[in-house]
């Protein structure tokens, strides 16, 4: 964090291993019933008192399973995990794996608190915030008086810096934003003063500025209460920011562990090296591509998208949600423009309005000087060839009922590309090659591919029409970092080969820096800043941009760029 730097991890002393350990996991193995291959295999680590221990890995690595096994809340369908999980601290050490359900229930929430990834669904919508926190206390501190319970619960809300806590105490969860809910979750997890907090991707669903605040909050509470934290994350930036020690998981095995500085500095295991190298900030820079500034592909002038708020029996619009307000920019042929902003800032709406998937309510978009809003249905369909889109969610961006071949050739046929099916299939095959997919992809269905592969097929679908502009709407945010690196490299190469202009909608600053020529920062539907990426990153003009940039966790912050690039 640039504005408010965190205490350096290197300086903090952590106690030697042994009797001071909070949690000792030995040889933990988890497997599904009726399945020989374990999902987590022989994982051993220990967390010292007051330590922030990070468990890092890509999706499917078994890091969340490990946490669930420690809590004893694995789903049905799993065999009882083998190994040992010793919880020390208050009282005698106990092997959690040998305890029965009532004993475990007493420990959960009391000695171990847990925070989950999705703040939107982890609070019960029919109880007030205060009620949910008090319930934890009543359960684990039955000796407390009702008055004291309320006081302690309110105190917990103050502790997590929820704005106007006394008022929020009586609110229902739907009135709170995602960040506020995550604060309430932390208050719930901490109100009984646990010795160990397990945080499973606590900031993944949050915006980067809120992520920074939540991480700082967890860190502060850890220091104040002398609590240990097991932080599960996929983000090496977060690890470098807050972790004392880190363990890297890969396919159910712990491949490396050590103090954060050492692991980030000089990763020993090949997989850790690969992970750190795949971070956008560490990717080899793309070769510069000449931008034809004089050819204006798109000129966007004061574009507006307002959604009416309808009320009453006659559904009269009483107000408007200004999703996009007065956004103006232009895009040159072969240029990459990044549109950056936090969730709800209108960047996705902007992308869809450019494509006229959502009708803009004001302003104009000109393609090669021709105003798009004047086009009729037929002309618009013809123009769609030139402006293509790739979506965020690889799970829903391909029609599950159609083979890849149909998905790719149908748009070509609609625009009269290729004389017959055979020619179109040959074209589709060539495009698949460009996105590094094998030729037999054509005859398969989307469910047979991983997220990254589907995203590449999504790019291929956009490419078959040979567009001038592709709008990439958060194309990498659902992907693991190594897969993200592949996709970014493919996009960079395609852009150079095809003179493709990209509008790259993202919230990830590392990606912006890596790929884009210019960047547009949006906040609450309005433009905050527009400029060359290099300039904006180095000298942000708007306050908001500065805050956004400061909040981004970077591995390089930990040790300095050169060492981390390794």
């Amino acid at each position, binding site marked *: 964090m640039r504005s408010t730097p965190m205490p350096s991890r290197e300086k903090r002393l952590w106690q030697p291993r042994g009797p001071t350990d909070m949690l000792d996991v030995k040889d933990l193995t988890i497997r599904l019933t009726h399945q020989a291959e374990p999902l987590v295999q022989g994982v051993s680590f220990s967390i010292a008192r007051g330590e922030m221990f990070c468990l890092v890995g890509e999706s499917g690595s078994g890091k969340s*399973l490990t946490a669930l096994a420690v809590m004893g809340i694995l789903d049905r369908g799993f065999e009882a995990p083998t190994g040992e999980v010793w919880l020390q601290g208050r009282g005698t050490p106990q092997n959690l794996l040998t305890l029965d359900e009532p004993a475990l229930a007493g420990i959960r929430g009391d000695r171990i608190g847990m925070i989950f990834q999705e703040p939107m669904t982890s609070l019960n919508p029919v109880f007030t915030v205060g009620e949910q926190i008090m319930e934890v206390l009543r359960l684990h501190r039955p000796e407390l008086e009702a008055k004291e319970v309320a006081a302690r619960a309110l105190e917990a809300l103050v502790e997590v810096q929820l704005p106007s806590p006394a008022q929020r105490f009586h609110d229902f969860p739907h009135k709170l934003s995602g960040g506020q809910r995550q604060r309430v979750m932390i208050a719930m997890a901490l109100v009984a003063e646990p010795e160990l907090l397990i945080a499973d991707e606590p900031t993944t669903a949050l915006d980067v500025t809120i992520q920074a605040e939540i991480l700082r909050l967890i860190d502060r509470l850890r220091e104040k209460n002398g609590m240990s934290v097991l932080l599960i994350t996929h983000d090496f930036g977060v690890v470098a920011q807050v972790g004392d020690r880190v363990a890297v998981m890969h396919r159910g095995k712990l491949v490396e562990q050590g103090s954060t500085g050492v692991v980030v500095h000089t990763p020993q295991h090949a997989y850790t090296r690969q992970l750190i190298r795949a971070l956008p900030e560490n990717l080899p820079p793309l070769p510069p591509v000449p931008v034809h500034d004089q050819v204006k592909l798109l000129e966007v002038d004061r574009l507006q998208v307002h959604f009416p708020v309808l009320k009453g029996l006659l559904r009269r619009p009483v107000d408007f949600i200004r999703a996009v307000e007065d956004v103006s920019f232009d895009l040159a042929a072969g240029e990459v423009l990044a549109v950056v902003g936090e969730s709800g800032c209108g960047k996705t709406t902007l992308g869809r309005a450019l494509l006229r998937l959502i009708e803009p309510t004001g302003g104009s978009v000109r393609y090669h000087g021709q105003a798009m809003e004047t086009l009729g249905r037929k002309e618009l*369909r013809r123009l769609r060839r030139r402006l293509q889109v790739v979506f965020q969610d690889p799970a829903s961006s391909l029609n599950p009922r159609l*083979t890849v071949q149909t998905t790719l050739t149908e748009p070509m046929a609609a625009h009269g590309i290729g004389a017959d099916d055979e020619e179109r299939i040959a074209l589709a095959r060539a495009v698949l090659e460009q996105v590094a997919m094998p030729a037999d992809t054509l005859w398969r269905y989307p469910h047979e591919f991983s997220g990254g592969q589907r995203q590449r097929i999504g790019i291929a679908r956009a490419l078959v029409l040979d567009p001038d502009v592709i709008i990439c709407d958060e194309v990498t945010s659902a992907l693991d970092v190594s897969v993200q690196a592949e996709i970014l490299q493919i996009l960079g190469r395609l852009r150079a080969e095809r003179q493709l202009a990209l509008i790259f909608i993202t919230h990830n600053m590392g990606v912006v820096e890596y790929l884009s020529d210019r960047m547009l920062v949006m906040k609450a539907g309005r433009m905050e800043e527009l400029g060359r990426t290099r300039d904006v990153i180095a000298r942000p003009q708007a306050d908001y941009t500065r805050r956004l940039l400061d909040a981004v966790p970077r591995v390089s912050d930990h040790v300095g760029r050169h060492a981390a690039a390794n």
Partner: protein
Amino acid sequence: MTEWTEPAERVSSPTFSRRILSEVLLRWGARLGLAWIGLLTLIAVFAPLLANSHPLLLRTAEGWSSPMLRFLGPADATLLGAFALAVLLRLLPGRPLARFLGWLAGLGILAAVSFALISPPSLVVFEQYREAQAEGAYLQVIRAPIPYSAKDYLRDFANTGLEPPRGSGDDRRHWFGTDENGADVLSRMIHATRIALSIGFIATGIALMIGIVLGGLMGYFSGIVDMLGMRLVEIFEAIPTLFLLLTFVAFFGRSLYLMMLIIGLTSWSGYARYVRAEFLRLRQQDFVQGAIASGLSLRSILFRHMLPNGMAPILVAASFGVASAILAEATLSFLGLGLVDDPSWGQTLNQAVQSSTFNWWLAAFPGGAIFLTVFAYNLIGEALRDAVDPHAQSGKAAVATKGAD
């Protein structure tokens, strides 16, 4: 010419519908349900061969003849022909949809031809064959397994009917007893299978067609179309089907086709709601947005990209709808407002309580058949629902996806 036509490459991936089907077949409930419906279908098609007073084949001094064929009605002929056509088309290559449409067309032609050409003798004397056989007029006779037609009333010994199932030792055996007219209950139940199945399928088919069209329009265009459509749905949901049926029966007489039509016309609203909700959801899906952004035509977007993806939950609802249509017909027949002469499970059930004694065999067998059929459709519907719901996948796959990370 190019290697893309290699079949080995193409057959490697099962289609979506095939995957759903195999998911469904994983469940024992669905297998039992499908087996029962399949059995009923076979019984319905081959009813004249299974239960018939006319001998299937007989040899007299003049040679072989088949009274069964001579008395085959146009409906029997259509069903048998349709079955043969289905088997034939199953063996031929082609896309499933094309084959299905071909079968439907064939069915239409068959029905037209058989109703135009086939007219069995209107005077039927069931007893003549039994009498002739008793007199020894035939050299050889092959009879159906149940040698009684559905409408072979009281002709046996001129007795009073209402016989319970008899023990062995009698050459005129009624496995499930006889009804108040003296007709064989098993025979009537076999012939009633057709009504049970056809009313379920046709009524639901009519409802589905209306529901999909209206629901699709409401979902895709939303706005004012949606608002008006939903009001129409609410109006139709307010109509009690049973009372409407009773009214129509009172005014227009008893007709199976009228019943199908009314059940169909009053039960589409549920499907329309489903389709509308599906279309509203699908419109926001990225692949549909992508199809619009690719400049595909509205027809392709609606029928290639949206409808097939929204079909699965509608089929689930339909399988429950079939069950309720069967129940509606049984209810009407039970109330004595069903078909007059034609056999129906509900009508037999009705007879169980008509006389002063409780005739258990008239209640147990048709009641059991109704129960099993409705239960079978519910099992299929439930399995289908589980199969299309990604959150309730069966077995290891679900746990693996949930458990991984």
